[in-house]
């Protein structure tokens, strides 16, 4: 066999495909280059005009693959070359290689153009973009190989391409949809080099190529008709939707109401005694699985006004002092008899210049204050303790507060104080530990080894609670991003699950959920060991990234609640392996979940808002446009998945 002649025939056969695809893919980069030239920047292309052809190239690679063998595998024409003294496998392998080379040539053309023209003009390629190109080249290889294989079987260009693309989508998505324990797969898999992903594309391509050789050699022919194919496609879409629906919407919405946007924006649901308050103003009634808002707001009585006026402020704010309360939105409350008390750490900072146009807060004052709740929602100051000596002005600010029975543990930077809540709601300092948190750090230890965390030693607090507090301090309070952290993460929520004598805790990162067991503890340390991990699937990471570890999530009654923006997920963390129970998602870009509260009956109350930006022509002659936001709030009552 004279290979050169076969290759020549192959190139001639594909030349129109090649030129058409090249024309299509080069349109955008050339257009960008021309625009750049017109703008006086020179004839070069970079960025999006290259990204789109690279992505479109994956589709065209499939077309080239189908066009490549279509003429040879036609029902009557394939006898023509098969009756020649050439092995079917070598003939098809050669065609595959030549076609693949031409497909890569086409797909690489815009990239090469971009690379060369950018280099000439001193522009640099973004590294992430290079990874994107490599990944899409791999997808192109997969598309080409799978479509080649499909055409070897189906022998009809359009149908082979459709089936091929469906298989490619399946191959690309399924490993991410299913919770396989691939450690290096994440939502931005197209922007990073993942070995699993490379293995899937290269492995599937190789398999498709080998099976194609056998299919042609044995003249396997799959009879298809377009109608059947469309039905199959529709069924597959339906099944995918079912799978997707299960992923996104298996938490049942029992009731939902629209609420005044201002309250939604404030967005916090607070449990005070038996009630749940929205924005500290409305009591949320969820009887009979219906949401009703009861306005607890009524002007304070004259007596109360007088009483409040008569109380001396615990701190007279200086002119340059800015207040910073903690927690900002949530409420730490304690009931003594019939009376409810709330607590707050009030801190004050000054603005210190750190650059020409920038400043940094420098904290000067910190008071832990207790308030008596009167007439439903009004706070009447009871007492305050000065904790300014816990502040270290050289360190970044962070604060925390945890109430355990009649004690408050206040955290300020690396120090903490234990406060006793007295029967009249006033506060008494039990002890103060300056730099008492120095031994804590969020270390990522070897998963195989047992590691230890220094036990918080607080008199009068049960051991279990101290273990819980220790873990939360280590991972929740002592945190990389504590200044960004939600109030709730430490103040109200916990990482720890106590199930009888078993204590475990969970940590989250972008890759998934890690579960650790507290294997033993003593007065000095608690000893922990990594147990298992549940990676997030591709769909769980779609639309909004789940989850940076400063996002709100918490454990309650053996369930892990994770929420961010559009989604809420519930996991069972007491089962043998971490099991997903439910997923709620709203596919609206502007949908933001603000807070959730698990009610006594297990139902979940969810507070969210949407925000739409409206741009209008400005009446002001100095400004072209004005913009404003239309906000809507929602309260949803969700069935807690089991």
């Amino acid at each position, binding site marked *: *066999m*004279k*290979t*050169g*002649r*076969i290759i*020549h*025939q192959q190139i*001639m*056969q594909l030349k129109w495909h090649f030129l058409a695809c090249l024309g299509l893919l080069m349109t955008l980069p050339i257009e960008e280059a021309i625009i750049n030239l017109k703008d006086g920047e020179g004839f070069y292309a970079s960025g999006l005009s290259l990204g789109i052809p690279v992505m479109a190239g994956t589709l065209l690679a499939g077309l080239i693959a189908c066009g490549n063998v279509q*003429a040879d595998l*036609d029902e*009557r*024409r394939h*006898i*023509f070359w*098969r*009756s*020649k*003294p*050439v*092995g079917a496998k070598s003939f098809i392998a050669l065609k595959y290689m030549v076609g693949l080379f031409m497909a890569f040539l086409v797909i690489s053309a815009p990239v090469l153009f971009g690379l060369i023209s950018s280099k000439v003009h001193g522009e640099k390629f973004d590294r992430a973009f290079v990874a994107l190109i490599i990944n899409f080249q791999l997808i192109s290889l997969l598309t080409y190989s799978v479509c080649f294989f499909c055409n070897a079987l189906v022998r009809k260009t359009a149908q082979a391409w459709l089936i091929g693309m469906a298989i490619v989508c399946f191959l690309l998505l399924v490993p991410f949809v299913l919770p396989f324990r691939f450690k290096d797969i994440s939502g931005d898999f197209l922007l990073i080099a993942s070995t699993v992903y490379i293995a899937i594309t290269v492995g599937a391509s190789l398999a498709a190529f080998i099976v194609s050789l056998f299919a042609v050699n044995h*003249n396997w022919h799959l009879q298809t008709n377009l109608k059947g194919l469309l039905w199959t496609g529709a069924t597959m879409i339906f099944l995918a939707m079912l799978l997707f629906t299960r992923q996104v919407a298996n938490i049942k919405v029992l009731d939902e109401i629209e609420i005044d946007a201002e309250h939604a924006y404030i967005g916090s649901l607070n449990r005070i005694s038996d009630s749940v308050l929205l924005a500290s103003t409305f009591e949320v009634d969820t009887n009979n699985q219906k949401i009703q808002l009861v306005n607890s707001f009524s002007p304070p009585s004259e007596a109360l006004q007088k009483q409040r006026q008569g109380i001396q402020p615990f701190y007279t704010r200086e002119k340059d002092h800015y207040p910073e309360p903690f927690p900002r939105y949530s409420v730490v409350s304690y009931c003594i008899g019939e009376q409810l008390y709330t607590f707050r750490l009030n801190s004050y900072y000054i603005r210190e210049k750190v650059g020409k146009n920038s400043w940094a807060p420098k904290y000067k004052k910190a008071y832990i204050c207790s308030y008596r709740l009167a007439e439903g929602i009004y706070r009447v100051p009871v007492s305050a303790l000065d904790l300014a000596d816990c502040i270290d002005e050289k360190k970044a600010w962070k604060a925390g507060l945890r109430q355990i029975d009649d004690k408050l543990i206040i955290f300020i930077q690396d120090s903490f104080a234990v406060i006793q809540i007295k029967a009249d709601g006033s506060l008494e300092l039990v002890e103060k530990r300056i730099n008492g948190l120095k031994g804590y750090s969020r270390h990522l230890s070897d998963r195989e080894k047992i590691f230890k965390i220094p036990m918080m030693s607080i008199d009068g607090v049960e051991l279990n609670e101290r273990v819980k507090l220790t873990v939360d301090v280590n991972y929740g309070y002592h945190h990389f991003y504590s200044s960004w952290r939600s109030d709730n993460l430490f103040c109200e929520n916990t990482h720890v699950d106590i199930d009888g004598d078993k204590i475990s805790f969970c940590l989250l990162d972008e890759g998934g959920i890690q579960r650790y067991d507290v294997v033993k503890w003593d007065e000095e340390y608690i000893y922990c060991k990594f147990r298992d991990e549940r990676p997030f699937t591709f769909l769980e990471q779609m639309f909004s990234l789940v989850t940076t570890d400063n996002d709100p999530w918490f454990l309650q009654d053996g369930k892990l609640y994770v929420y961010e923006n559009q989604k809420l997920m519930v996991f069972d963390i007491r089962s043998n392996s971490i099991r997903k129970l439910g997923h709620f998602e709203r596919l609206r870009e502007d949908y933001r979940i603000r807070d959730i509260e698990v009610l006594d009956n297990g139902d979940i109350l969810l507070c969210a808002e949407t925000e739409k930006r409206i741009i209008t022509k400005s009446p002001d002659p100095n400004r072209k446009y004005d913009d404003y936001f239309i906000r809507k709030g929602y309260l949803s009552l969700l069935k807690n998945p089991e």
Partner: protein
Amino acid sequence: MTITAIEIKDLHFSYGRKKVLTGVDLDVPAGSIFGFLGRNGAGKTTLIKTLLGLQKPSGGKGTILGLDCFENALEVRKRIGYMAEDQQMYGWMRVGQIINWVAGFYPNWDMTFTNKLVDILRLSKNTKVKALSKGQNSSLALLLALGHHPELVILDDPTLGLDPIARKDFLRHVIELLQSNNVTVFFSSHLLYEIEPVADHIAILDGGVIRKTGKTEDLRDSVRKFLLNPKPEADFSHIPGLLDVMHSGESVSVTVEDCTDEKRDQLKLFSQNGFTETALNLDEIFEAYVIGNKGQQLAAG
């Protein structure tokens, strides 16, 4: 040179459960023009594809030019020329391009001879294959089957779809180009009148088996038709080699193979007043073998 160009022993082939070839035995003498007859769907193309190694038989053996055609398919294909029924080629290629492309598969391709064939077959190298007429397309397929001087040429219904003039023209070329060069030609067709003038050997395939094979002249000589008025007790079913019995009013026509004087005497006994004996053309012989009732109708009556 081998005496037998094609030798097939007990060849079986099925498409799933459907049996197409059920024990085909066939010898094609070297240097002959072998007419391979069969109705549409009889299994002619299946047999040829199997011989070319394009599909695996479910049983049996086959050799072409002394080579096992299943084990040495590529070697066999180098030494034979093949033209499929209604041959489809790459329409976007020009005649010159397709000749060059096919030449790439054969180490002994003779380009001078091919150029000569282009002239003889009145083809133009610049014409696109898709622009060729059916007759020209067949000529090109013939050219591509002959360019490497094959020892055996297999033509599978090569004139399918051609008009009578184009068919005659094609057959003339086949005779001109092949008969004089001692090339074995295996000519499959269902059109008997186009085989009759050129074939020196014949095989009839029907129902997956070879019904009859032999020299064309011998076949013509051995099959005879007798017209007679039968006696009431006449039972033709016992005559050996009975192919067909047809009633026409009072008289009966009886077709018999391997006709001997003994069979003639037997027929005389069944006749009231003797018989008229006629020779058959290939068309009639084929009909007698393929759709002849072998006296069954008569016996039933």
